[in-house]
């Protein structure tokens, strides 16, 4: 089956992106990557210790994965742009997940500042993945500003509550001509599969893997769930019927003319 996720010139076999925060041990990260078969990992630049004496998390990442630095900690477009530039200069490539959070209580993204950051970064040649609250108009502006994909949240970061914003994400999938990658909130492989069945292009998972009792095993499960959900989407499942077929049809009196 030739089903690749295309982002610019890049073609990906895996539709699972994995976050690297919250792990108890950096040695787990390469194992999680291998088990999940992911090809894209996000890394918070704020946590990367470029100092050679320190523990640099980037050293734990296999050479063949794409690093997608994120702008965690940015409170406005200016800070997000600065973080993206630092990441690129540090050799993290030109993919960037723009995350502008002005609310530390729920960690909800600021769509307005995010749009401003995309405008600057896309012009500078970054491949921009904005993390956003699922809102159609904001997603359209992000697409117009040059985003490579749109990353709506399923539920607030770290809640593991699943696809609480399902209806709104469905609208983005229908209306936006960019890959829709569900980011945040996915707590279980079944929810990842559900997002893929809906037609999401990919999902990003961090907390659910990093805080599981067995992160490597659940990473594998997430990889399989994403694949299964994608296949189901491509297969086009049979329509579900809400009511049983009526034995006395209401339109039975209509005769063929």
């Amino acid at each position: 089956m030739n089903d690749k996720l295309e982002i610019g010139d890049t073609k990906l076999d895996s539709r699972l992106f994995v976050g690297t925060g919250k792990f108890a041990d950096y040695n787990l990260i390469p194992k999680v990557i291998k088990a999940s078969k992911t090809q894209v990992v996000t890394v918070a630049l704020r946590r990367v210790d470029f100092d050679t004496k320190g523990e640099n998390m980037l050293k734990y990442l296999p050479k063949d994965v794409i690093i997608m630095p994120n702008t965690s900690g940015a409170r406005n477009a200016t800070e997000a742009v600065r973080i993206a530039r630092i990441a690129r200069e540090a050799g993290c490539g030109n993919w960037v997940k723009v995350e502008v959070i002005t609310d530390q209580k729920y960690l909800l993204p600021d769509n307005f500042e995010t749009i401003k950051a995309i405008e600057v970064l896309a012009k500078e040649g970054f491949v921009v993945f904005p993390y956003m609250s699922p809102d159609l108009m904001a997603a359209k502006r992000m697409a117009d500003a040059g985003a490579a994909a749109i990353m709506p949240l399923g539920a607030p970061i770290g809640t593991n509550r699943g696809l609480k914003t399902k209806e709104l994400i469905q609208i983005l999938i229908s209306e936006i001509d960019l890959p829709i990658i569900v980011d945040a909130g996915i707590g279980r492989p079944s929810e990842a599969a559900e997002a893929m069945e809906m037609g999401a292009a990919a999902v990003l998972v961090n907390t659910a893997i990093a805080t599981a009792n067995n992160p490597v095993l659940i990473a594998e499960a997430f990889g399989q769930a994403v694949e299964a959900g994608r296949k189901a989407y491509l297969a086009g499942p049979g329509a579900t019927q809400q009511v049983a077929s009526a034995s006395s049809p209401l339109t039975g009196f209509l005769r063929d003319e």
Partner: protein
Amino acid sequence: MTFYDEVSKFQDTDFVEILNGFTTSQIARALDKSELQPQDFLALLSPKANDLLEDIAQAAHSVTLRNFGHTIFLFIPLYLANYCVNHCVYCGFNADNNIERRKLTLSEVENEAQAIAGTGMKHLLILTGESRLHSPVSYIKDCVSILKRYFPSVCIEIYPLSTDEYTELVGAGVDGLTVFQEVYDRNIYARVHPQGPKHNYQFRLEAPERAGQAGIRTINIGPLLGLNDWRSEIFMTGLHAAYLQKKFPEIEVSISCPRMRPEVGGYEAEFPVSDRDLVQLILALRLFLPRAGITISTRESAEFRDNLVKLGVTKMSAASSTAVGGYATAQHSLGQFEISDYRSVNEVYEAISHQGYKPVFKDWHDLSLVSDHV
């Protein structure tokens, strides 16, 4: 409106009566909620909640894990000066105490910075006593400009400043403020801070809000446990943190729960807090404020700190000295108080890792060196 108005509403509240009135079923209900109201928080602080401590611990552990993962952030304090005009009855730096007073020269600051940076620590907290004569804002600013070359994050724990002064220090690269109200009860506050600028309760209480207006990134508040009954003090601290979260949603708010330690003046805590009490109050804070940082310093013993790793704490200091300088400068002055955890950075790192947690040295990146020019 400031938090001062909120505190005023509780002026005549009889906390003892309310706290003793909670039943086990009220506590169980509070534990069941995904978002706790102040009343639920108070229930978890009540004497009765002690009976459900293990259940509360399990809930708090899971909330912490979802929000922070298996991580503990590390920081280290550096005392720049111990000159002080205040008369806090519980503090080793009290103006009345006959101790050697000194402040670091700028070249000593540089030496200290190198010694600390050599341990791998990245988040620095700088402290002074209150002396606008010996450690004015201009001195602190000079120190910050040196320290920023070594540390991605420099936070201050100094006397309360005006909004303009906070703005000046934020501009110099300070990203966090720690300021302890010490005690929220106004009568006790007046008694333990009899003279000096610190006698002004309201000016201190509103310091975090002034720093918030000045654009600070992180705020850490707390009571000094031992000065008053911990249950009502932690309740007010929790409300203060929630107030700051709501007023400044972009700021990361954290809470410290320092227990009084022996100091040179020999002051004894009037309201001692047991280990079990400390655990209960940390758990209650965690459930009331799932996203807030909770800080534990080297005031607590190594063994106790290791056990707290899984109970809601998210930040720890390590290898701390509470004397001026203390990392590189040969001539050590007497500390502000005695610490209890004497382990090195490496030993603390190993101990946290042993608990199945990742010690995080770096959680911020200095953005001031990048140009905005497109």
